[in-house]
């Protein structure tokens, strides 16, 4: 259980510009992000010997390898389940580094999520696989988008605990406040008020426009190496205290509607239990978080999954300013997927690394440990980053 504790570190981060129309191929974006990550670490692309991405990423590992002039690869892999792969790709890299399969593994995700294939376009397909049979139970009724799937669980949770539109709005506004000062962010210099939030159009009740993440073009990459080696590299390492993937009984991709309890996130609870055990830490040791935020409701529910408050108490935690820079748990201090950009969660991990380095545009006072999670409603994962 403790075998991955303090074994690896994120030693480099790289991001392209985030936009609504990159005018470039995903390979171009991925290549720029990967080179930026290794350069940030003080390494050369030829020192890359491992590459990991998402199954949803259009650019294969060897395309990136040839493009950037990587070295010989001894580890390459892809992780399934959309944004659930954000921590998953790092998990693959950590295991590879910890077991000596590779020394310098770069994880990447590059997408034209606005100008190209948009998530809101919905799922479709021709070949009969068990996965497509799964989606077909929802497609046939017109339930085709991530918002529609998440809304079903959000509505149940909100009804059970009396969570209001204003409560969701506070999450959107808290993260927009961070984005306002972040030049990379879509929300840079674009404040959001509660009036704006409540007036925004209903998309999939109870979720409004501002409950949804951005649709973005851009790329992100992270360089993972051993904790030992990271000390000698250019940047202050973000050491991985604990990391895990998590999928629980009755798991479907986005539509786990048939479990007894629908007001919790069992896979996040499993991830929490494992990262806390692996790191020897608990919720009270976590100073900031980058909780996956494709939708505002996901942040609310995860506060309970990770034990920052009890069931039904997240709305009060948020109302008291718990997610803000001087609050109990500054969260998504770059604006997150809601207000910086949606690079499938990898940009949230990049921000978690900045928080450990002390380099966020919204750096809270003292940061020892940062919690990061990946996609909600899908097979997912979580990790805790700490100082070297």
């Amino acid at each position: 259980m403790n075998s991955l504790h303090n074994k690896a570190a994120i030693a480099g981060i790289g991001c392209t510009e985030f936009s609504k129309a990159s005018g470039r191929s995903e390979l171009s974006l991925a290549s720029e992000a990967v080179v930026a990550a290794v350069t940030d670490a003080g390494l050369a692309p030829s020192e890359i010997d491992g590459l990991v991405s998402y199954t949803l990423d259009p650019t294969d590992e060897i395309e990136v390898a040839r493009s950037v002039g990587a070295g010989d690869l001894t580890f390459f892999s892809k992780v399934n389940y959309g944004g659930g792969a954000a921590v998953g790709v790092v998990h693959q890299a950590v295991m590879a580094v910890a077991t000596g399969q590779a020394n310098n593994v770069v994880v990447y995700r590059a997408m034209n999520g606005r100008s190209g294939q948009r998530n809101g376009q919905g799922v479709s397909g021709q070949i009969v696989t068990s996965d497509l049979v799964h989606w077909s139970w929802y497609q046939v009724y017109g339930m085709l988008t991530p918002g529609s799937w998440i809304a079903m669980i959000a509505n149940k949770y909100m009804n059970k605990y009396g969570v209001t539109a204003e409560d969701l709005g506070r999450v959107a506004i808290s993260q927009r406040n961070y984005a306002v000062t972040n030049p990379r962010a879509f929300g840079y210099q674009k404040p959001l008020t509660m009036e704006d939030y409540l007036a925004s159009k209903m998309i999939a009740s109870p979720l409004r426009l501002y409950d949804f993440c951005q649709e973005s073009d851009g790329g992100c990459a992270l360089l993972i190496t051993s904790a030992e080696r990271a000390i000698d590299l250019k940047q202050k390492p973000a050491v991985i205290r604990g990391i895990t993937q998590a999928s629980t009984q009755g798991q479907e991709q986005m539509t786990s509607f048939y479990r007894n309890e629908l007001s919790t996130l069992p896979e996040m609870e499993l991830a929490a239990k494992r990262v806390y055990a692996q790191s020897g830490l608990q919720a009270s040791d976590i100073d900031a978080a980058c909780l996956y935020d494709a939708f505002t409701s996901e942040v609310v529910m995860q506060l309970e999954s990770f034990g920052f408050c009890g069931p039904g108490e997240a709305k009060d935690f948020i109302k008291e300013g718990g997610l803000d820079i001087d609050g109990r748990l500054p969260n998504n201090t770059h604006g997150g997927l809601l207000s910086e950009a949606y690079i499938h969660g990898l940009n949230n991990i990049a921000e978690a690394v900045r928080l450990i380095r002390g380099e966020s545009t919204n750096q809270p006072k003292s940061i020892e440990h940062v919690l990061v999670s990946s996609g909600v409603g899908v097979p997912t994962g979580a990790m805790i980053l700490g100082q070297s």
Partner: protein
Amino acid sequence: MSESLVSRIKPVLGLDNKWWWDQAAEGVLAIQRCQVCQSLRHPPRPMCDQCQSQEWDFISASGKGTVCSFTVLHHPKFPGYDYPLIIVLVELAEGTRITSQLTGCEPDEVDFDMPVEMVMQRDADGFQLPYFRPSQ
């Protein structure tokens, strides 16, 4: 607006789910049942997760249930569907749940625990699928 000429997205049909749609075409809301331990399951799967048996049959559901959760979809609008589109997660009297559409109800009238009953929808192209409506 008149009914859209474009039809809804049809389910892919494989060995594990075609039988269920065949039943719907006959007007039956089927629930898969394990022949060994008798447990019910939906959506259909080839193996019982309780006893690992792949022997199964099905029962014809009463069609009675309550709204466990719901969402009203406004945007984006896909051809083949009418908006606002009320999607319901129905807890059937038999104990399994099914994701479906609520018809004969205003979007602002759908509520948790609302009693509903199955009504078989027949599209212009002859495709049939179970909808639900408020219990009469």
